[in-house]
């Protein structure tokens, strides 16, 4: 069990930076999730930690030790790949035994057998042990893949989108399974995904990445309720956050060219003042827009319902006012018809303000 520390890690592919001076510290026993869109450099970072890629600059410390010159094999990390990389010419048992038979370990057969049985038990794959790995289903393969990672009790687990090739139902099951596994094993997980649900549900902490840089590191709550910039705000949350350009005028926020005038909270006003900005991006999540049939006390604006996506547990209303389109989630029993005019009440306590130039959070 160990922590991982990345210091000003930089990696380029043909002069295109894939990782740009990354600093991250993954705590011991933490479930740390790296979240970002395709091409953000998440996988590259994981591969650098494992040793499969060599960074141009920066240091990687596993358990305090600089592993820059340590071979892949000797780093004692486990890697679960996006594609099930079970060795096709081996049975499930041979696959699980393979890491234990490395020259680095030299375990006795009895110990190997015991470990394999234990792991098979944990992952519920005992009945598959003597099957050829090519005859397994996707979910079973990924279970074995994870099994091959945990069988040798490595210092850290590196997981590169292990669930992305599974179908939705199975992915949900495996999510719970992985969380359980992390709890059960009590080891460090460094997990890469582009799926915000995976990140939010499993991660102790999340690092949001974009184009080779870290945008924000924090708990799922931090990321969701206090996004560091508009990218993080947009990337996390479904349906996505509503972002509207606004101008500060006499202590009021004029949105979308004066269509809506709302009053920020005292805190937000203070933050705006200290930032010295009067042009901002106003962000509000769909669930922070309260929909009513009658006009509310303040920050309440009439809007036209032009589309309703029913999700079962909730409805996503697409609201329109001139050329401004907002999404709001409401309980499905409100009986709101398309074409109807409703009032969108912005819960200003939960609103976000971002710098229009730097896109960084103001308040």
């Amino acid at each position, binding site marked *: 069990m160990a922590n991982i520390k990345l210091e000003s890690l930089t990696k380029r592919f043909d002069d295109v930076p894939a990782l740009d001076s990354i600093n991250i510290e993954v705590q011991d026993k933490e479930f740390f999730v790296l979240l970002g869109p395709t091409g953000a450099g998440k996988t590259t970072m994981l591969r650098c930690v494992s040793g499969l890629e060599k960074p141009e600059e920066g240091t990687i410390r596993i358990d305090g030790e600089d592993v820059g010159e340590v071979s892949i094999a000797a780093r004692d990390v*486990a890697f679960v790949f996006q594609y099930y990389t079970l*060795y096709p010419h081996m049975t499930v048992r041979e696959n699980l035994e393979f890491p234990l038979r490395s020259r680095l370990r030299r375990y006795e057969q009895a110990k190997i057998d015991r470990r394999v049985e234990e792991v098979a038990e944990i992952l519920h794959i005992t009945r598959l042990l003597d099957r050829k790995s090519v005859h397994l289903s996707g979910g079973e393969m990924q279970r074995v893949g994870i099994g091959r990672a945990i069988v040798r009790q490595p210092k850290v687990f590196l997981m590169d989108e292990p669930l992305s090739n599974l179908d939705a139902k199975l992915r949900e099951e495996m999510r719970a399974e992985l969380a359980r596994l992390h709890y059960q094993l009590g080891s460090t997980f460094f997990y890469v995904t582009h799926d915000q649900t995976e990140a939010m549900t499993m991660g102790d902490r999340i690092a949001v990445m974009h184009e080779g840089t870290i945008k924000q590191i924090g708990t799922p709550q931090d990321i969701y309720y206090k996004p560091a910039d508009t990218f993080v705000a947009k990337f996390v949350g479904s349906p996505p956050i509503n972002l509207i350009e606004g101008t500060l005028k006499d202590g009021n926020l004029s949105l979308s060219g004066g269509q809506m005038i709302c009053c920020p909270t005292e805190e937000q006003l203070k933050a705006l003042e200290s930032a010295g900005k009067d042009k901002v991006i106003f962000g509000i999540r769909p669930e922070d827009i309260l929909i009513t049939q009658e006009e509310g006390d303040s920050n309440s604006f009439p809007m036209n319902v032009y589309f309703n996506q029913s999700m079962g547990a909730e409805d996503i209303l697409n609201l329109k006012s001139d050329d401004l389109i907002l999404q709001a989630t409401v309980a499905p029993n409100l009986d709101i018809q398309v074409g109807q005019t409703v009032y969108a009440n912005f819960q200003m306590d939960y609103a976000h303000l971002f710098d229009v130039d730097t896109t960084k959070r103001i308040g």
Partner: protein
Amino acid sequence: MPQIEERKGIGRTVAIVLLVVFTVIYLFPLFYVVNTSFRPWAQIKEYPPKLMFEPSIGSYIRIFTARTGFPPNDQPTQAEVEEMEWYERIVYKGTNEQIVRMGDLPKRYMNSLVIVLLSTGITIILGTLAAYGFSRFKVKGKDDWLFFILSTRMIPPVVVVIPVFLLYRNIGLNDTHIGLILLYTAFNVSFAVWVMKGFLDEIPIEYEEAAMVDGYSRFEAFRKIVLPQAVTGIAATAVFCFIFAWNEYAFAFLLTRNTAQTVPAWLPYQMGVLGYDWGAAAAGSVLFLIPAMVFTILLRKHLVRGISFGAVRK
């Protein structure tokens, strides 16, 4: 529905008939050679040829032996004929010859086997390793190298027979095993690199990466993970290299006389007392065909998958 069934039935019949016809056409020369090799001496040159006859292994005895004809004034007596070994008698009755010694076939055959197996082995090792390098590593000027390797195949080998002959004479490789091994390896290795690269490219690199993370060196990963999956490709490549080297005639004919002469270079020299010995040549050909057939059949399981490998995704 019955109509469709019927049409399917007709299609099947046509396919079977066509397959039978092609099989017969392709197998006929083979049949004729085998047939000729078992014909008694007197019937070999008979026209029209008889397909049915009492088989004789005379041709096989002749291909294995060196013989001289009995002079007309020194024919063996009845008693002497009866004292002959059975094989001597068969030869005497067929061509009126006496066996002087064991022929050169076993030696030539060994030459062929040694040269071809060694060159195939070396080709596979070099080709697989080179292909692995090209497939997995960043090699400077990779495409140029690969093209260069392929380009060695572009001139027909016969064109360079004379230069190679002169070169070999100067460095003393004429009529040596090592000379032919080097030559066949050089010719086959380009082919092996290209074919093996195709196979290795198909094996996802993640397998080796997984193995390395699991605690193995790159070479161990290559040996334990890549090689078992490349068996099909190796088998297919080996069969092609083996057959090329086994059948090669031009270089063997020019570069070898004796010590390292292979079967294809030696086989045409089958003269008997009564002219060219077609029976012995046919018998030699049959024996010559066997290793290639055995080799191919042994690797057949891999071969079928190997040849269609690129076409069908796993």
